[in-house]
């Protein structure tokens, strides 16, 4: 107890040096005063008394120094002394220090960077109060796929559930709306939400207010909420905007509020009331549902509650028969599964790389400790305890790790700046930063690195005993135990490198497969131009607009084909609906036969997009609105609906089975214009000649690059409607590349880790073998003096290297085979045990190992037997 108190005082003294110093001065002053008083009592004059007292006291500063020394901040002083000693030692070996700090710095930097990304993208909580009470509700179709909800279904869920505090709905904006009246017209993304969405999420407007329930009805007042970004960027943060109208798609909307900057749901730039109606089609699934669990209610309870409502609905409304619900945490919805998996993969890879870097530096430190045995022995002989030596060794590792961490943090901060600007469609990627949590991670990593790097050398130092050390005095040999440790570390490095190489290799194979996937759409010299009409005019005007623009573009010299489609390829947009063959309408009923994607395209689309018509004919101008409704099906849809039969001339229902069936006039090739990694979906095409839409994407194809094509396309668009926002014109190639950017970046990062690990393992192997050659100089010299051929010396060194590398490769391949199972769902058309990858990685390592072994081996042959034997 008393001892604890003593320790506490000491600690306090270290932390609060100022207080301790003040107390010391005061205590001394008191002492002097008492001494003076005593002298005066003894009859001295006050002045003589003071002088005598000072003389008796002695040197004030020296005295203070002595007290300070015995204040007993031993551990702290020792630490400072050890750090100084370590820094001096490192400064004496600048190359070693630079390599070590650089290696650890890169390792820690990579780990910190990846953690920073994972933290921002996956780990950071959603910016809503009590985010774990928020859920996202999916409907599930009879085949079990997730679907959005419909307005009548939403209203039923909202009114009849007993487990949610509130249930809100939102709807994505689709192509967006044109904002006019402020500078140039521009297309902004507008989503709609029920008035309850903001209270459910716990979000209030930063300025103004959110929707009232009175505004959230059909025919309610046209109001709009602006995102913080749009308000700042377009309206210059004008607070007087509240209550004033802005023009969206030609109609006035009153601005009632600005949302906080942290609110990024759907990345929408503006929100309008959703106004769900029970009269809406129950089969139109376009609403996302977000709810907050009622107090004491669990996700499972909400699930069974809502599933009950869905089942009851299915009995009453045939279109929802067989449909269910799936309730998931909002967090899971916001951070998609592949993103989580990639994060785990990257964290695992970077941890492996860091571990490898540590093993590498540990090997170097072990070798260094061996070389410094004389120094250690001297200190031991001078009375330093073994514990002290171990501590000092660990301090040195700590200093290396600390310097590495500083470098790593600097690298991570730079990398974060670059990553924020990466054009990847990853939510919250722009919030990556080196924040407090990231720094805490770096500190934790530094501690791990210190131990990983320093523990072995420290234990070795602790085991140095004076007796045997002195016996071997002078020789800088190492115990065989130490050599074994170094070799074990090298084997570990090789194994880790193999794991990383195989992991990176598999991801590259997968990314290449993805890249080479035939999407059924041409990419060479193909351009896409998404267009959205500002105001929605009469249908015939819309049709005329797109036709005329297409004609104008086709007239540009060099352009071969131009057409239009409703879905901008690779933009993520998709449209699906029930499809039922005429002859199955009775059995399928209102629920439909199967779900298929659908597109509205113009007659020129198939040629422009390079989609072949396999059978039958393309759409033509002769397909008229009042004529026979026609449809072209993809090969997959034809196979699903009429396997082994000719689909031409057959008829199907699109959506409800009560309308007019549509006649199949052609079969087109399969396309993947949404997800490149998925199987081509069954898909049907409708003609712009029969159905009109206000937002279309033009597809333009030429034989060769055309200078200034983008400008000419813009001219063509503005010639028809000068009020349109500046159209974005993208090369199909770029859109496609952007769609696979995520897997590609992951693969590249992993490949970079793999190459780094290969280098590190090579350096590690080289180091150990080179050191072994130096250690065995006498032995090799002796053998050569006795007539051993240089070739034999080389073989013996190289054999050692190959044995170590082989052992590491064996362990690495086994570990990789076990670990790649975890990557399964991230791999596209690539076996988990891909023979090529599993063959190439060991071969690469083998080559590096040979090179790493050959250099020291050659040096061994240059040993001069005479000088080797004469040395020491």
């Amino acid at each position, binding site marked *: 107890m*008393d001892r604890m108190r*003593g320790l506490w005082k000491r600690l306090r003294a270290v932390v609060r040096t100022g207080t301790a110093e003040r107390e010391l001065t005061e205590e001394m002053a008191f002492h002097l005063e008492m001494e003076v008083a005593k002298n005066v009592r003894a009859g001295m004059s006050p002045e003589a008394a003071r002088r005598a007292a000072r003389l008796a006291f*002695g040197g004030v500063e020296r005295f203070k120094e002595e007290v300070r*020394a015995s204040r007993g901040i031993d551990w702290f002083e020792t630490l400072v002394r050890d750090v100084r000693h370590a820094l001096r030692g490192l400064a004496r070996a600048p190359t070693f220090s630079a390599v070590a700090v650089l290696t650890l710095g890169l390792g820690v930097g990579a780990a910190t960077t990846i953690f920073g990304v994972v933290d921002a993208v996956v780990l950071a909580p959603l910016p809503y109060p009590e985010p774990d009470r928020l859920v996202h509700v999916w409907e599930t179709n009879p085949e079990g796929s997730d679907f959005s909800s419909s307005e009548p279904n939403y209203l039923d869920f909202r009114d009849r559930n007993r487990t949610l505090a509130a249930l809100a709905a939102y709807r994505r904006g689709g192509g967006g709306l044109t904002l006019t009246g402020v500078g140039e017209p521009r297309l902004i993304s507008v989503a709609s939400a029920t008035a309850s969405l903001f209270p459910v999420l716990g979000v209030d407007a930063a300025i103004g207010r959110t929707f009232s329930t009175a505004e959230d009805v059909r025919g309610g007042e046209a109001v709009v909420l602006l995102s913080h970004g749009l308000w700042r960027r377009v309206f210059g943060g004008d607070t007087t905007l509240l209550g004033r109208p802005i023009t969206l798609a030609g109609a006035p909307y009153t601005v009632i509020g600005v949302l906080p900057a942290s609110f990024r749901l759907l990345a929408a730039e503006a929100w309008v009331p959703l106004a769900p109606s029970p009269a809406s089609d129950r089969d139109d699934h376009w609403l996302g549902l977000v709810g907050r669990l009622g107090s004491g209610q669990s996700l499972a309870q909400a699930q069974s509650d809502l599933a009950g409502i869905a089942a009851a609905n299915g009995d009453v409304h045939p279109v929802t028969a067989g449909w269910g619900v799936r309730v998931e945490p909002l967090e899971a919805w916001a951070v998609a599964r592949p993103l989580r998996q990639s994060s785990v993969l990257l964290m695992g890879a970077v941890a492996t790389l860091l571990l490898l870097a540590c093993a590498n530096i540990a090997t170097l430190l072990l070798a260094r400790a061996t070389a410094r045995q004389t120094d250690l022995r001297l200190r031991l002989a001078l009375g330093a305890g073994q514990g002290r030596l171990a501590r000092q060794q660990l301090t040195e590792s700590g200093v290396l790790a600390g310097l590495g961490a500083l470098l790593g943090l600097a690298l991570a901060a730079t990398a974060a700046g670059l990553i924020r600007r990466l054009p990847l469609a990853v939510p919250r990627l722009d919030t990556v930063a080196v924040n407090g949590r990231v720094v805490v991670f770096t500190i934790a990593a530094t501690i791990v690195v210190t131990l990983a790097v320093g523990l072995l050398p420290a234990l070795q130092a602790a085991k140095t005993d004076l007796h045997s050390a002195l016996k071997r005095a002078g020789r800088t040999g190492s115990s065989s135990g130490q050599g074994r440790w170094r070799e074990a570390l090298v084997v570990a490095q090789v194994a880790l490198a193999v794991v990383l190489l195989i992991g990176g290799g598999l991801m590259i194979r997968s990314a290449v497969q993805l890249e080479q996937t035939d999407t059924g759409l041409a990419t060479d010299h193909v351009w896409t131009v998404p267009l959205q009409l500002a105001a929605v005019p009469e249908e015939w005007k819309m049709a005329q607009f797109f036709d005329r623009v297409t004609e104008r573009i086709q007239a540009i010299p060099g352009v071969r084909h131009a057409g239009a489609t409703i879905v901008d390829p690779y933009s993520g947009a998709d449209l699906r609906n029930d499809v039922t063959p005429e002859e199955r309408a009775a059995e399928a009923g209102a629920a439909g036969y199967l779900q298929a994607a659908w597109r509205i395209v113009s007659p020129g689309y198939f040629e422009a997009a390079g989609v072949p018509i396999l059978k039958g004919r393309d759409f033509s101008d002769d397909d008229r609105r009042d004529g026979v409704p026609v449809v072209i099906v993809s090969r997959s849809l034809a196979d699903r609906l009429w396997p082994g039969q000719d689909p031409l001339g057959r008829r199907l229902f699109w959506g409800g089975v009560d309308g007019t069936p549509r006649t199949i006039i052609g079969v087109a090739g399969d396309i993947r214009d949404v997800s490149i990694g998925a199987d081509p979906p069954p898909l049907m095409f409708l003609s712009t000649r029969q159905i009109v839409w206000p937002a279309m994407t033009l597809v333009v194809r030429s034989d060769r690059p055309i200078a200034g094509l983008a400008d000419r396309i813009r001219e063509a668009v503005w010639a028809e409607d000068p009020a349109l926002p500046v159209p974005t014109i993208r090369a199909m190639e770029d859109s496609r590349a952007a769609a696979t950017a995520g897997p590609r970046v992951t693969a590249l990062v992993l490949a970079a880790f793999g190459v780094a690990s290969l280098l590190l393992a090579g350096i590690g192997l080289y180091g150990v073998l080179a050191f072994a050659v130096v250690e065995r100089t006498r032995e090799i010299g002796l053998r050569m003096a006795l007539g051993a051929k240089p070739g034999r010396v080389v073989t013996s060194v190289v054999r050692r290297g190959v044995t170590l590398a082989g052992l590491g490769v064996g362990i690495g391949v086994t570990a990789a085979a076990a670990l790649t199972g975890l990557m399964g769902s991230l791999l596209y058309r690539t076996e988990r045990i891909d023979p090529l990858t599993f063959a190439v990685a060991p071969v690469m390592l083998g080559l590096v190992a040979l090179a790493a072994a050959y250099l020291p081996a050659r040096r061994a042959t240059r040993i001069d037997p005479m000088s080797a034997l004469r040395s020491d």
Partner: protein
Amino acid sequence: MPPAPAQEVLRGTLDLLILRTLALAPEHGWGIAQRIELQSNEALQIGQGSLYPALQRLENKGWIDSGWETTDQNRRAKYYRLTATGRRALQAETDSWRRYVHAVELILTNG
């Protein structure tokens, strides 16, 4: 300053003397030095250079404790007092000192 030739206290024994002094009553540094001088009939003199480091050392061991109090003359001073551990240590140190003195005495008289 006392005119008689005073002896500096041996390093190892200073701790013992301080503990013994504090066993009687809490005291400040100057008082401890005065008491030791007085009780040894001024044969022993405590240099400040060794007194305060020794006090610090003993405090670190947890044998004594310190705190600021007011003296009779209403002056703030740092007082040291013996802790329970210190009391046990005093006993052990005293015994060991006696054995030591006895051993030295034996040699001086018989040798």
